[in-house]
């Protein structure tokens, strides 16, 4: 059913359709409405799940670790500081091969404290072993939540999935969204039936001490599984399309790239703005396109390389910065492209600063003229330390 709906509400509806059995979350600043809606669904008898109002994000992640290990489909969501506080547990959830679903409303990380959007939080835990998929709009968020369960819970995968949605822009914005019917979701997503769980009839020990004789192989197993996930995501995307009629679930999306000389690369909601600019500049005869990264972990190297192989100029937009190095996407992509392609890295939209059409235009201009690994866009010169001023 198509509804004009707030992002958090839509994501709560999508989560409800996936029939979670245990939900644990903590309202750390910043907070979204996702858990509030889920709590109301339970209170009204519209969702049969246990909700645990925990005392921290660390315990939220720990509760869903325990409930998923006990065999129940489990859900949590967070952002920013909350995600960082969870990070210790997230490594465990992945290491213990438990397909918890987590929505990350992407927001900046302190200090200074800032509740607005960028993608520093999820990027900071990219090495944890979670599958990370990024939504461009609210519809995609809904779709990735539903598909994400099927990807993570595949018996060959059994890894947590983090659906990343830009804070405020997607969580508090409103769109017309197709909320699928329960029948269709039930048809797509079977009940959670794990190959292992805490079971008194088949006692197992979870989370053992892995000394040097076994530890490496556990990491190797996750790495190999994530390589397989690069095949599984498009497969699940196909099944999703068959049932719901949308091709939103995949590794990447290529927007007018086939003949493009200049290609921008980005993740999340900024892709919408970039697509508009691409259209405007295409109308003026410019050969330009966008490569949208949906799956950041696992990173689809081959697909990205192929999509950019014919480009002359590549401009990569990062809403994050690995301080002392470059933006995360830039480093990821620069390392796999041939020397002949000019690659620029841009850091933009940090701490909720808008990436405006004019910002994107500046990025395109620089991409075609210069070659910088890490250019901050839209800096306010007045705020810079004297020695850092450029004019």
């Amino acid at each position: 059913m198509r509804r004009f709906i707030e992002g958090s509400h839509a994501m709560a509806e999508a989560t409800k359709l996936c029939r979670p059995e245990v939900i644990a979350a903590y309202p750390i600043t910043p907070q979204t409405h996702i858990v509030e809606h889920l709590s109301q669904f339970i209170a009204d008898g519209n969702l049969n799940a246990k909700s645990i109002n925990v005392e921290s994000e660390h315990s939220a992640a720990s509760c869903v670790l325990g409930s998923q290990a006990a065999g129940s489909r489990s859900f949590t969501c967070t952002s920013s500081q909350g995600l960082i506080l969870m990070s210790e547990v997230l490594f465990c959830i992945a290491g213990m091969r438990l397909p918890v679903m987590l929505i990350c409303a992407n927001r900046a990380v302190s200090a200074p404290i800032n509740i607005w959007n960028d993608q520093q939080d999820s990027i900071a835990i990219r090495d944890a072993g979670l599958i990370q998929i990024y939504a461009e709009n609210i519809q995609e968020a809904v779709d990735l939540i539903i598909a994400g369960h099927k990807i993570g819970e595949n018996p060959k995968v059994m890894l947590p999935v983090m659906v990343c949605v830009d804070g405020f822009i997607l969580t508090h914005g409103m769109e017309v969204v197709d909320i699928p019917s329960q029948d269709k979701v039930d048809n797509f997503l079977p009940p959670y039936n794990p190959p292992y769980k805490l079971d008194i009839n088949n006692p197992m020990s979870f989370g053992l001490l892995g000394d040097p004789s076994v530890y490496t192989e556990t990491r190797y197993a996750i790495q190999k599984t994530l390589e397989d996930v690069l095949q599984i995501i498009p497969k699940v995307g196909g099944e999703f399309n068959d049932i719901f009629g949308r091709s939103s679930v995949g590794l990447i999306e290529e927007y007018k790239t086939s003949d493009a000389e200049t290609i921008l690369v980005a993740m999340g909601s900024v892709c919408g703005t970039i697509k508009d600019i691409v259209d405007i500049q295409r109308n003026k005869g410019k050969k330009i396109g966008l490569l949208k990264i949906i799956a950041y972990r696992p990173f689809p190297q081959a697909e990205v390389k192929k999509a950019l192989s014919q480009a002359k100029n590549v401009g990569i937009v990062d809403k994050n910065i690995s301080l002392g190095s470059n933006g995360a996407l830039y480093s990821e992509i620069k390392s796999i492209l041939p020397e002949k392609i000019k690659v620029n890295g841009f850091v933009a939209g940090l701490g909720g600063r808008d990436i405006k059409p004019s910002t994107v235009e500046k990025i395109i201009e620089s991409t075609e003229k210069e070659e910088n690994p890490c250019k901050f866009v839209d800096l306010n010169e007045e705020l810079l330390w004297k020695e850092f001023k450029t004019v």
Partner: protein
Amino acid sequence: MKNYSGRSLKQFNMEKEHLKENYYVSGHTACAGCGQSMAVRIVMNTAGPNTIATNATGCLEVFSSKAPQSAFGVPWIHSLFENSAAIASGVEAALDQQGKKDKINVIAQAGDGGTADIGLQALSGMLERGHDVLFVCYDNEAYMNTGIQRSGLTPFSAHTTTSPSGKKSSGNPRPKKPVVEICAAHHIPYSATSSIANPKDIEIKVKKALQIKGPKYLQIHVPCPLGWRSESSLSIEIAKQAVNTGLYPIVEYEYGKLTKVRKIPSPKPVSEYLKLQGRFKHLLKNQEEIAAVQKVADKNIDYYGLK
């Protein structure tokens, strides 16, 4: 992808008739005379096969679960130091949602550091939310697994590697954190202490706790020969002296009220306890120092009405 079955050791030991009903079996790597290991066996065997156990990081987790083996014959899960109570909360919620809670005990386990220090917040959350979980703290009074560092449950004047005795120090300057009372202050159905000095007492309290629906806390005094610098063969004897001197009061709280204490009509002087352990060796030549520890015992005796 592999989760190692906890059955490997158990099946091996099943051949030995006397170990048939064991849900925590020998073959693990605990030190000789480890009080914690003895207590775990009593707790697990009292709880029986319809139990799921969670575990904080610490000695117990390390010596009982080296992949690919596990000493636990019941489903068991460990992930981190501070979250045994939160993992147990999640397990309990899942079992409740699956309609299995009434048939299965959930026992959260941690050492004193994982309970009184880094795990206290998660424990308080579990108690406050009313989860039907028995939390067992094996109190060996320091971070033994990492090299005998002081915890919030390290007793007054004990020498540890981070509260060493020296020319200007008599060891740990603070008394034990009153965790059993902190838990009782949540007005939970049951909060109690016990000691490996009296295995039957542990059994009775575990049984009692598991019959109560809601959050329960049990703190068991478990000597650690390595950290206490004591003879392995004396662990039970030392635990008895801790109780008999009043330094480890055996108490029970129900719904926030002190309902029962183990009486010690003629308390032993604390020196009887201190002299058995290297961690108190620095006190023994100084009567003033011994008197200071005696004060702690006297205060306990008075406060809990142990006489």
